[in-house]
């Protein structure tokens, strides 16, 4: 009996210590998701710079989007040959000489839309994911809803997957493609503002909306 109590006490202590360690590691590893977007934007721009320098004979390295020593030396040589300030940085004047637009934008809207599609409709067929993305965009256009993608997605109680945190899952390629298609005008629901899964929905109000089409598990309505 006493032995059992000792073992229990030691085991509980170990469990608690491990729990604290796990939580600490989790918190430390939680990065800022938005840096992914900024990093992708920078890489695209850097690749363009490297390609231009390669075409002009200043750069022989890989087009990898990373401006390492080789890239910086190439930029400096280009700047020297073109009477620019030699600092290894592609600013407005160097970009103009290279005929590059510095204004590469990160696609926050596509990313946010993809996150919501992934959260709400992963596992649905592709056209069903496009339809979910289209509903979000239809709401932006509708006077009855907020006027931005972020406003629509984060409107309180609007989407279950936002409310329960699934929105924070990293979207897969299918969700990105669906988001992009919807932003390019694809809408297999022709203007629907609502969708629900009849197997799990409980709101009497949503059932009263006019059904337009059923795609996969979701009924789309206006």
């Amino acid at each position, binding site marked *: 009996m*006493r032995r059992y109590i000792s073992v229990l*006490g030691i*085991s509980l*202590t170990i469990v*608690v210590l491990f729990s604290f360690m796990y939580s600490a590691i989790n918190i430390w590893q939680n990065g800022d998701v938005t840096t992914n977007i900024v990093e992708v934007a920078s890489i695209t721009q850097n690749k363009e710079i490297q390609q231009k320098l390669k075409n002009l004979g200043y750069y022989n390295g890989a087009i990898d989007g990373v401006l390492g020593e080789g890239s910086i030396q190439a930029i400096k040589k280009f700047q020297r040959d073109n009477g620019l300030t030699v600092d290894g940085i592609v600013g407005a004047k160097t970009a*103009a000489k290279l005929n590059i637009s510095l204004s590469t934008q990160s696609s926050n809207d596509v990313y946010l839309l993809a996150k919501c599609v992934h959260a709400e409709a992963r596992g649905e067929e592709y056209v069903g994911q496009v339809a979910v993305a289209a509903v979000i965009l239809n709401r932006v256009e509708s006077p009855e809803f907020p006027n931005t993608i972020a406003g629509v997605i984060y409107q309180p109680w609007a989407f279950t997957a936002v409310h329960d945190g699934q929105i924070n899952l990293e979207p897969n390629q299918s969700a990105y493609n669906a988001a992009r*298609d919807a932003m390019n005008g694809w809408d*297999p629901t022709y203007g629907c503002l609502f969708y629900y899964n009849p197997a799990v929905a409980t709101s009497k109000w949503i059932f009263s909306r006019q059904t337009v089409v059923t795609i996969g598990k979701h009924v789309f309505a206006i």
Partner: protein
Amino acid sequence: MKKTGYILAILGLSLVCVGLGIALYFNTTTMTGHASTLENVYQKSLYELIDNVNAIEVEVSKMLVSNDYDSQKKSMTNIKQQATDAQNCLSYLPISSGLISSSSKFMNQLSGYSTSILNGTQSAFSQEQEKTWQEIYDCIANLKYELNKISLKVSQGYSILENLDNNKEIDGFSQNFSGLTNDSIEYPSMIYDGPFSDGVLNQEIKGLKNETCNEASAREYLSLALKNFAVTEITSQGKTTGKFVTYNFVVKADNIIYYAQVTEQGKFLINLSGNVGDGEIIYSEENAIKTAESFAKNLALENMKCVWKATSKNITYVNLAPVVNGIIYYPDLIKVKVDRTNGNIIGWEATNYAYNHTTRNNGTFAKSEDEILASVSSKISVNSLKKCIIPLEYGGESYAYEICGKYNTFTYYIYIDANTGKQIKVMRVIQTTDGELLL
């Protein structure tokens, strides 16, 4: 030995209790902090909403008694901003959307209505507009009354968070807004051409033939349309009964599964969506454009030419528009997706064509090309000048000239009215991580 065991056990259990206690304390403190912050955000949104509505009520009442149009225009500028802010505040509040859809629509349309009058050339309100503003005032007065009731509650200690319950369709907090629905308040109709107007939402369908078809006929048409796709199976998926009534099909072809929609009216392939391949890119953008144009021709859509292309990873988006007598018909745009790993068409979107395509005979280009070029800013280095018809932002079309040019490494598209010489809009090519965009 036995004593050591006891001591260890007691120590272990004590550590556990202390650890759990500390964790619970920090957790509770953090959660209380978060809850407090959220309550503050909700209350801020509510108070700002009430401020916005109060401000709108005052501005509208001033307009109704004013005889000076400049003063009325200042009021409308304030109303436009306050209405937009009010709509934003409504969207931050945790209220069931069914209860606030009418008031959201009202605020958005109020902002749009003010914008459309401000953008016009009138020098006084028409009788119709006077009547509408009076109706708007009556509505706002009712909204103000309902919202001030809620404000009084909150000022007496009502907690929004404590009255939220996501297990209920309409929880305690949402019930406060039941007086804002269509059943309780008469929201006026605002007739205008502008943002969120009902005219924009209810578009006429011009591009489809009048005859209707049944599902069998739609399936046969689809089979012919996709004859080059190596189709093995077409399965019916029912109907869409919205703005367009369509027969829906799943089409299996090689390794691709398509979802296709054929309109009941006019028997027209309006939508096609397929999955993208994952191989190496082998198809050039130029070939993607030829494939898209060829597919349109196979569907008996004449004169469809590529007017824009953008590539994102292994997909090229090709925008096709009819080009008739050298004029690009932008309102009749069709979008095509081509998979560059295999050259397959994996997307077709023709809603604009279905809405807008029609024969256009009575347009003119009163201004000459030289006059138009002379009116363009000297900063722009012009690359091309084309004739076109463009859709206007809130409905309608205009004959125009499209000037493509560069300034400061950026590419711009400028659209100038072909008859008045007035600039309609300017768009710029934006580089994004997903390819080029025109904004």
